[in-house]
C-alpha cells in the first residue's frame, strides 16, 4: 500500500463531522476539525472561558466538547481528544496542505457543498483523496463546477451514525475517479478504521438507507393494515428477526422521527420512478408527531414512545396510539408461536418456523420481509450494480441485521418464498426465475460458515460472479464442526484450529463463551499440541463476545452439594493452565473483543501479548457475583502493581495496588479497548486495533514476528516484597467509611477486603518476600471463603436467574 494517512481534515463540525473526527483520532490519526469562523467571542461567559483565545474556532471547539456528552460515547477514551485539532475555515484552511485526506461534512446543501469543494480544491496537495460524507446529495452535481483533476480524486465516503460503532462505510465513486486511489483509501479504511466497505452508485440515499428506510416505511404500512400497535411490531421486528432489540420504532425514536422522515421524503421527491414511491410518503400520524415536535429521544424522549415517571419515581414507557393521538401503557400482543420460536436459537430456522403460521404477527413478519426482498431485487441493478452482496452487507453493517435480504431469502428457501410472493401479487423483476441461487454456498449452510460466500448471482446479468475471500477473514468455527478440516482438536466448548504458518488458534464456542470444564480441558490439550506441533498460539473467536466469564452454574452446583474440594480443584486446574500458557516455550496472543469478563479476561491476561479490538468491554467483574478473580487475575494485577513500584527507588506499592484494587473491587468494565489498557487492566504488552476483521491476522503476524525474533518465556517472578496486613487494613479504613457513607453495602466491603487481602499479600507483616504461586494460593483461599458465604450464593443465583448483579 502506498497510501499513508497521518493527518486528515474533516470540514464541518456537525454531529457527524465531529464523530468522524473522533473515530479517526481513535485510530491514531491527527485530525483537524474545521467549521465556520466566529467573528466575536461567545456572549455566554462560560463558553467564552471555554474557548478562550481560540474563539474564532468556537464552532469546532463546542463540537469537540459535545463529543463528551453524546451517548453512546463517540470517544474510545478522552485521551484521543489530543488528536483532534479545532480550527475554522477562514484562519486554518492552510492546514489542508498538510493533510493526506480531506473529508467534507458540511450541511447538506448543494450550494454550500459546491463552495466548500472549490475551497478544498484550491488548498490541498494535488493527489490526496477528497471525499464527501453526504448521505443523499448527488456527487456529480456537487462537483460539476470542478475539473477532471478534481474528479479523479473526489468520491463519497458515507459513514453511518454513530460512526464509531457502525461498521458500514459506503463508497460512492465518481465516474472519472482514479480507481487505484479509491481502492487504496478503501483498503486503508478497512484496515485502520475497521469499517466494512460497500460500493454504492450515485443514486438517492445510496444503498443501505434506501433499502433500510424502505423496510421501516413498509413497517408503517403493514402496521396500519394489520391493525397492530407499535410495541407489538417492535417485539416482532427485533431479536425475533435477527435485528437489533431497538427494532423498528425504538430505532426511529433514537434516530429522530424528523430525520427519518426527511430521508424517506428524499426518495419520494427525487426518485419519481421508485416502484414503491408512495410508501415513502410518511403516514399522516407521523407528520402529526413531527408538527407537534414529538421527535423521539432528542425531544425529552417523547415520540413514538413516551417516558413517564410517576410520583413514586417509577418510570414507564408508554406507546403512541395514532388513532387517538395519545399514549397508552404498552400491550404487546401475544402470538401462538412465540414461546416455541424463542427456543430456536438460529434466526433463519426461527423465521422459517414463524412463517409457517398465518396470524397477524406471522403475516406482519412475512409482508415486511416480502416487500424488502422484492424492493431489493427491483433496485439491484440501479443502486448496487447487480451485486446482491452490496445490499446485504449494507443492511447488515448499516442497520445491524444478522442477515441481509438476499441471504435471508435464500436461507428461507428461495423458491418457496418466490412462490408465496407471486401468490400475493407482488411486483417482481423479470430475472427472478425459479431455482436462482443468490449465493454459493447457501447462506447458513455448514460450508457457508467455513468459507463465507464464494460467488454471487448478478441479477439481470443472469450470471454468477466469484467473490474473493479477504485474506484477513478466517471464519473460525462457532461450534464443534466435524466438517472443518482445519480443526486439530475439538470438544463442545472449544476447538483448536490450524490457521496456517505454524500457528494454532484456540477458539471458544460455548454459550456466551463461558469458561467451562470443556474449555479448560481443551486448553490443556491445546497446550500440549501447540508445544509439539506449532510455533505459537492465538486465542480468539469470531463470536460477539470473547467470553462472558466463568461457568457459574458449575460453581453454584458444587457449593450446593458442599463440594468445596471440587471448587478448589477447578481453580487449581484453571490457574495451572494459565500459568502454563504464561510461561510456555511458545508465544501466545489473545484477542479480546466485545465482552471479555471475569475468567475470560483472566485468560487474556496470561498470554504473552494482547491485541484488543476497539470495542472491548473488559473487566474483572467477579465481585458482582460475590467472588474475586481467582484464575490468576487478581495475581496478575498485584504482580504488575508491585513491579511498577519496584521501578522507583524505595517506592510505595500502595498507590499502584490501590489502582488495581479499584478495578477489581468496583468490578470496572472498560468502554473500549483503549480504555481497557489506559485503566490499567492490561499492561504494556497490549495493543488496540479498530479493525475487528484484521484482529486475528494482526495477532498471527505478531506471533510469527515474535517467533522469528527469538521468543523466550518470561522469567519467573520470585521476589515480591508485599505490603501485608498494614495494606489490607489501610483498604479497610477506606471501606469502613464507604459503608458508613452508604456508598457500598457491608457485603460489598467484605468482598473488597478479600480483594485487598490477595493484592496486599495476606495478613502478614509488611516486607515479607513471596513468589507468584503464593498469590495463587491466596486467590483460592479467599475464593473458597467467599463461596461459603450465603450472600455470595445469593449473588450467583441472582446472576444466573436475572443476568444482573445483585447488591445484597
Amino acid at each position, binding site marked *: 500500500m502506498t497510501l499513508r494517512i497521518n493527518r486528515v481534515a474533516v470540514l464541518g463540525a456537525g454531529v457527524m463531522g465531529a464523530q468522524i473526527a473522533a473515530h479517526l483520532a481513535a485510530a491514531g490519526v491527527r485530525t483537524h476539525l474545521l467549521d465556520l469562523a466566529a467573528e466575536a467571542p461567545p456572549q455566554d461567559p462560560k463558553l467564552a472561558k471555554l474557548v478562550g483565545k481560540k474563539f474564532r474556532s468556537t464552532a469546532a471547539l463546542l463540537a469537540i466538547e459535545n463529543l463528551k456528552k453524546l451517548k453512546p460515547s463517540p470517544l474510545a477514551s478522552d485521551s484521543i481528544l489530543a488528536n483532534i485539532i479545532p480550527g475554522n475555515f477562514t484562519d486554518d484552511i492552510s492546514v489542508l496542505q498538510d493533510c493526506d485526506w480531506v473529508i467534507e461534512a458540511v450541511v447538506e446543501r448543494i450550494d454550500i457543498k459546491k463552495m466548500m469543494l472549490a475551497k478544498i480544491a484550491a488548498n490541498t496537495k494535488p493527489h490526496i483523496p477528497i471525499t464527501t460524507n453526504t448521505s443523499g446529495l448527488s456527487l456529480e452535481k456537487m462537483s460539476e463546477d470542478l475539473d477532471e483533476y478534481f474528479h479523479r480524486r473526489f468520491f463519497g465516503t458515507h459513514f453511518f451514525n454513530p460512526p464509531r460503532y457502525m461498521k458500514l462505510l459506503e463508497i460512492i465513486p465518481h465516474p472519472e475517479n482514479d480507481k487505484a486511489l479509491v481502492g487504496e483509501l478503501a483498503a486503508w479504511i478497512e484496515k485502520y478504521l475497521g469499517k466494512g466497505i460497500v460500493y454504492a452508485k450515485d443514486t438517492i440515499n445510496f444503498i443501505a438507507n434506501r433499502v433500510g428506510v424502505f423496510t421501516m416505511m413498509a413497517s408503517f404500512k403493514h402496521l396500519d393494515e394489520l391493525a397492530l400497535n407499535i410495541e407489538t411490531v417492535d417485539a416482532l421486528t427485533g431479536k425475533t428477526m435477527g435485528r437489533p432489540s431497538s427494532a423498528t420504532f425504538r430505532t426511529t425514536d433514537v434516530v429522530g422521527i424528523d430525520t427519518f422522515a426527511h430521508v424517506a421524503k428524499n426518495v419520494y421527491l427525487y426518485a419519481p420512478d421508485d416502484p414503491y414511491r408512495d410508501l415513502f410518503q410518511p403516514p399522516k400520524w407521523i407528520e402529526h408527531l413531527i408538527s407537534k415536535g414529538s421527535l423521539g429521544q432528542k425531544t425529552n424522549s417523547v415520540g413514538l414512545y413516551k417516558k413517564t415517571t410517576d410520583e413514586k419515581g417509577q418510570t414507564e414507557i408508554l406507546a403512541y396510539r395514532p388513532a387517538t393521538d395519545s399514549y397508552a401503557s404498552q400491550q404487546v400482543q401475544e402470538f401462538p408461536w412465540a414461546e416455541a420460536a424463542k427456543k430456536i436459537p438460529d434466526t433463519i430456522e426461527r423465521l422459517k418456523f414463524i412463517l409457517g403460521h398465518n396470524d397477524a404477527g406471522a403475516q406482519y413478519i412475512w409482508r415486511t420481509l416480502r416487500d424488502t426482498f422484492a424492493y431489493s431485487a427491483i433496485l439491484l441493478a440501479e443502486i448496487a450494480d447487480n451485486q446482491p452482496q452490496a445490499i446485504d452487507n449494507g443492511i447488515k453493517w448499516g442497520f445491524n441485521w444478522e442477515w441481509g435480504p438476499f441471504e435471508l431469502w435464500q436461507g428461507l428457501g428461495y423458491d418457496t418464498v418466490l412462490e408465496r410472493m407471486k401468490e400475493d401479487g407482488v411486483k417482481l423483476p423479470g430475472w427472478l426465475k425459479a431455482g436462482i441461487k443468490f449465493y454459493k454456498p447457501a447462506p447458513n449452510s455448514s460450508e457457508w460458515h467455513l468459507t463465507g460466500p464464494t460467488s454471487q448471482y448478478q441479477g439481470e446479468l443472469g450470471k454468477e460472479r466469484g467473490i474473493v475471500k479477504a485474506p484477513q477473514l478466517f471464519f473460525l468455527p462457532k461450534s464443534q464442526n466435524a466438517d472443518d478440516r482445519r480443526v486439530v482438536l475439538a470438544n463442545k466448548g472449544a476447538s483448536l484450529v490450524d490457521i496456517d504458518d505454524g500457528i494454532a488458534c484456540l477458539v471458544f464456542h460455548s454459550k456466551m463463551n463461558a469458561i467451562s470444564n470443556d474449555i479448560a480441558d481443551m486448553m490443556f490439550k491445546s497446550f500440549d499440541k501447540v508445544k509439539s506441533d506449532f510455533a505459537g498460539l492465538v486465542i480468539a473467536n469470531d463470536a460477539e463476545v470473547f467470553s462472558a466469564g466463568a461457568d457459574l452454574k458449575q460453581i453454584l452446583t458444587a457449593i450446593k452439594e458442599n463440594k468445596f474440594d471440587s471448587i478448589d480443584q477447578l481453580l487449581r486446574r484453571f490457574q495451572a493452565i494459565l500459568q502454563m500458557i504464561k510461561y510456555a516455550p511458545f508465544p501466545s496472543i489473545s484477542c479480546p473483543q466485545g465482552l471479555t469478563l471475569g475468567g475470560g479476561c483472566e485468560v487474556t491476561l496470561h498470554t504473552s501479548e494482547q491485541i484488543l479490538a476497539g470495542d472491548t468491554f473488559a473487566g474483572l467483574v467477579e465481585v458482582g457475583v460475590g467472588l474475586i478473580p481467582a484464575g490468576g487475575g487478581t495475581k496478575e494485577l498485584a504482580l504488575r502493581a508491585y513491579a511498577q513500584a519496584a521501578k522507583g527507588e524505595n517506592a510505595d506499592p500502595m498507590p499502584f495496588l490501590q489502582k488495581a484494587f479499584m478495578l477489581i473491587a468496583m468490578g470496572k468494565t472498560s468502554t473500549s479497548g483503549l480504555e481497557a489498557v489506559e485503566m490499567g487492566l492490561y499492561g504494556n504488552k497490549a495493543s488496540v486495533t479498530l479493525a475487528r476483521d484484521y484482529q486475528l491476522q494482526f495477532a498471527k503476524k505478531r506471533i510469527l514476528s515474535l517467533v522469528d525474533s527469538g521468543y523466550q518465556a518470561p522469567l519467573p517472578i520470585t521476589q515480591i516484597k508485599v505490603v501485608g496486613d498494614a495494606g489490607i487494613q489501610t483498604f479497610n479504613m477506606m471501606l*469502613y467509611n464507604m459503608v*458508613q*457513607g452508604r456508598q457500598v453495602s457491608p457485603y460489598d466491603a467484605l468482598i473488597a477486603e478479600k480483594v485487598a487481602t490477595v493484592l496486599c499479600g495476606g495478613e502478614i507483616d509488611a516486607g515479607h518476600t513471596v513468589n507468584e504461586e503464593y498469590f495463587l494460593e491466596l486467590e483460592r483461599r479467599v475464593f473458597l471463603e467467599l463461596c461459603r458465604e450465603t450472600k455470595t450464593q445469593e449473588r450467583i443465583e441472582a446472576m444466573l436467574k436475572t443476568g444482573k448483579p445483585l447488591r445484597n
Partner: protein
Amino acid sequence: MRTAYIVSPLRSAVGKAMRGTLRTKRPDELCADVIKAILKANPSVDPKTIDDVIIGCAMPEAEQGMNVARFALLLADLPQSVPGVTVNRFCSSGLQTIAMAAFQVQAGGAECILAGGTESMTLVPMMGHKPVGSRKVLKDGREDYYLSMGLTAENVAKEYKISREDQDRFSFESHKKAVAAIEKGWAKAETVPVQVSFRSPGADGTVQIQEQTFDTDEGARADTTFEVLSALKPAFKAGGTVTAGNSSQMSDGAAMCMVVSEDYLKRHNLKPMARFVSFSVAGVPPRVMGIGPIEAIPRALKMGGLSLKDIQRIELNEAFAAQALAVLRFLEIDPSIVNPGGGAIALGHPLGATGAKLTATLLHGMQRDKQKYGIVSMCIGTGMGAAGVFEKL
C-alpha cells in the same frame, strides 16, 4: 502564678487549598513571614531573648515535616540560638501552642515565646501522604476512630437534630458575614501581606517567575445564595445532609503571636493585646468529634473563674455547620456573638494554623468593638474539643 500576655497576634491571609494563591507557598516559609512581621512590629525585642518557638501543625510531614518550627524560625532569620518545637493536636494545634507558651511563662520557665501554627493543605493532604490502617482499630470494634470527619458531622446532625436547611442557612450567613467583613477591611490589622511566587514554563525552556502579594482571605463567596447551597449533593453519605457547601473549606495559612511575661513586657516596653486567662481540652467519642467544644468551653470558663455571661465574643471554628450549630444550641450561646466576621465555612480552615488564626481574629475584633472577654474554640478529629479564654487589655 505569673501572668502571660499576648502580643501582636498576626496571621497570613487564608488561601484556598489546591487552586488558591498560597498553593505554591511552603508552610515553613509562610510562617517565617508572619514571625518576621511580629518582630518588625516590636522592634524593641531582641530576637536573642526569645526562649522558644512553638508551632502547631496537624499533618507535620513533607514540606511541613522535619520539625517545621525549627525551619520556620531559621527562615525568619532568628538567631540560631533560638530553639523550636512542633506540636500536633490536629485542628487545635495553633491554640494548643499558645496555651503551652502561656503555661511556660506562667510557671516561670520562659519570658518570651513565639507560638502559633502553620498548615498547607495543598501540599500535605488530610491524613498525610501515607495513611496506614491499624488492625487493632479496625478489627477490635474501634473502627469509628477512623470515621471521616464528614461522617462524624452526619452523626452530629442526626443526634442533635440539625436539619439540612439550618446547616445551609448557617453556611450562607457565614459567607455573608465574611463578605461584609472583608468589605469593611476588618482583617487588615491582623493580616500580614506575604509574597508568593509562581514558577511556570517560559519560552525556550526558561522559567517564568511571577510574583504576587497576598493579603486578603479568598474563601468567601459573594455570589453564593441559600438556594445554591441547598442544591448541593451530600458529600460524605448517600442521603445525608452534610455538603461541601456547609463544611469548612480546605485552606493554606499561618498565624503566630508572642507570649510574654509581665517583666518582659515592661523591659521591652511592649503593648499587650490580651491576657491569657485559661485553656482546656477534652475528649469526646470520636464518632461525634464535632461536639468537642461542648465539653471544652465550660471547663475553660470554670478554670478562668468566668461564665458564658461574661463572654462577649467567640471565635468558634466552623468545621461543619452541623457541629457548630450543635455546640451553639447545646451551650445556649447567643449566635450574634459568634464569628461576627464569618467562620471557616466561608474563610477556610488551615488545620494546624486555625487556633492561632482565630486568636488573632478574636483579639483584633475585641479591640475594634472594645470588648473584654472572648473565647477561641474548636472541635478536633478523633473526638476532642479545645477552648481558650482571653481577656482583652
